[in-house]
């Protein structure tokens, strides 16, 4: 049975609320193909039955899986490019101006997956940090399996074709048989550790820069707010947060200022949380819960 209009509307609404990604009418095929594996896993005859079951059951874990299935992209290097050119054009100059030419920047890549993001950050920093400055990158992910891969820094030919400038490829990776491996120098700059965003942040802060890209979309608004707040507590007051291309803090957490940088934006804390204030006493934002979330365009 083909996906009903109601089922499609339910999924589109869920995805839009969680991720600001719009699934316009006409994208039914996408929902069908992306949810088919989930439907089969549960022994459902088709996607429509699966969606009905999710809707009726109302379980948060199901909602997360549906959103994840519809918004997951292949991991690429320098994904969306703006967040990396932002390092060069804004983030590093700002932080060096504030901290001095011999600054040691503390960077956290908080949903690092198989490692392309933290290694891309490291490559960019290698080019734009002044010679006396240095950086340390903490890279975390929920899955120990992807972290094992990330630590090795080995990628297939198809993976290195994906978004990695050729000049970076030859400078920072070498062939190892049919694969390519990130140089030891670059790997030394990144520490990979398992971490669940729902837990207190790792103790390696306070951070100058946090990359939290394309992972908030899996959570409902309350959880997004909680994650952002926990982040703010472990960032330096003049630190910088980088989100995914279609993501924003606006409408979620009003303690950040959005700074347009190039084709994208970064976020800086406006109301740093005093260290002794507990989360429960944080005043709720005065924005209405269903105010429109700014989008960067239809997906």
């Amino acid at each position: 049975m083909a996906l009903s209009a109601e089922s499609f509307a339910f999924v589109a609404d869920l995805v839009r609320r969680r991720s600001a990604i719009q699934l316009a009418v006409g994208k039914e095929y996408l929902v069908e193909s992306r949810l088919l594996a989930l439907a089969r896993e549960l022994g459902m005859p088709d996607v429509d039955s699966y969606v009905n079951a999710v809707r009726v059951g109302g379980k948060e874990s199901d909602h997360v899986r549906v959103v994840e299935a519809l918004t997951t992209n292949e991991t690429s290097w320098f994904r969306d490019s703006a967040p990396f050119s932002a390092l060069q054009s804004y983030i590093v100059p700002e932080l060096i101006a504030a901290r001095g030419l011999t600054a040691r920047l503390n960077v956290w890549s908080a949903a690092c997956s198989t490692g392309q993001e933290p290694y891309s950050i490291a490559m960019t920093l290698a080019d734009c940090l002044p010679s006396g400055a240095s950086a340390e990158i903490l890279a975390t992910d929920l899955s120990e399996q992807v972290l094992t891969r990330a630590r090795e820094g080995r990628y297939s030919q198809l993976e290195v074709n994906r978004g990695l400038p050729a000049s970076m490829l030859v400078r920072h990776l070498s062939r190892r048989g049919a694969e390519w491996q990130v140089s030891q120098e670059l790997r030394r700059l990144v520490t990979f550790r398992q971490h669940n965003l729902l837990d207190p942040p790792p103790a390696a802060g306070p951070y100058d820069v946090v990359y939290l890209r394309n992972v908030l979309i899996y959570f409902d608004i309350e959880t997004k707010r909680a994650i952002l707040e926990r982040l703010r507590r472990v960032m330096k007051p003049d630190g910088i947060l980088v989100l995914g291309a279609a993501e924003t803090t606006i409408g979620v957490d009003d303690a950040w200022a959005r700074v347009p940088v190039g084709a994208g934006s970064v976020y800086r804390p406006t109301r740093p949380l005093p260290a002794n204030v507990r989360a429960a006493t944080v005043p709720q934002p005065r924005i209405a819960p269903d105010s429109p979330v700014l989008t960067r365009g239809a997906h």
Partner: protein
Amino acid sequence: MRALVIDDSRTMRRIVAGTLHDLGFETVQAEDGRAALDVLESGIDVELCCIDWNMPVMDGLEFVGRVRTNPAWRHITLMMITTESEQGQIVRALAAGAHEYLIKPFTADAVRGKLDLLGLVPVKETA
């Protein structure tokens, strides 16, 4: 925007041209570097060249060198698409003036990703 697809394999030209069409490019094809230079010299305006390395008559590396030494063709982006994937080969190509380098086999997404890096995608991404 127009792209020139240069490869001695008709199959490969078809695959690359097909991907570029989906991304909004018009395409012209050439089967070796010499034929490709003829296309450029005939005055056809081209923003992007996708170039195989190993071709008879004139190979891709030589084509790249020729284009880069001609001021009239400064604006053309040169991307090699080839099986040559040794580190040294990629360095040679970049040194000769290629702007980007894609290793075969490649996916349509990989082409899009490289063109994104080069600021050359005319069509907005749709799901």
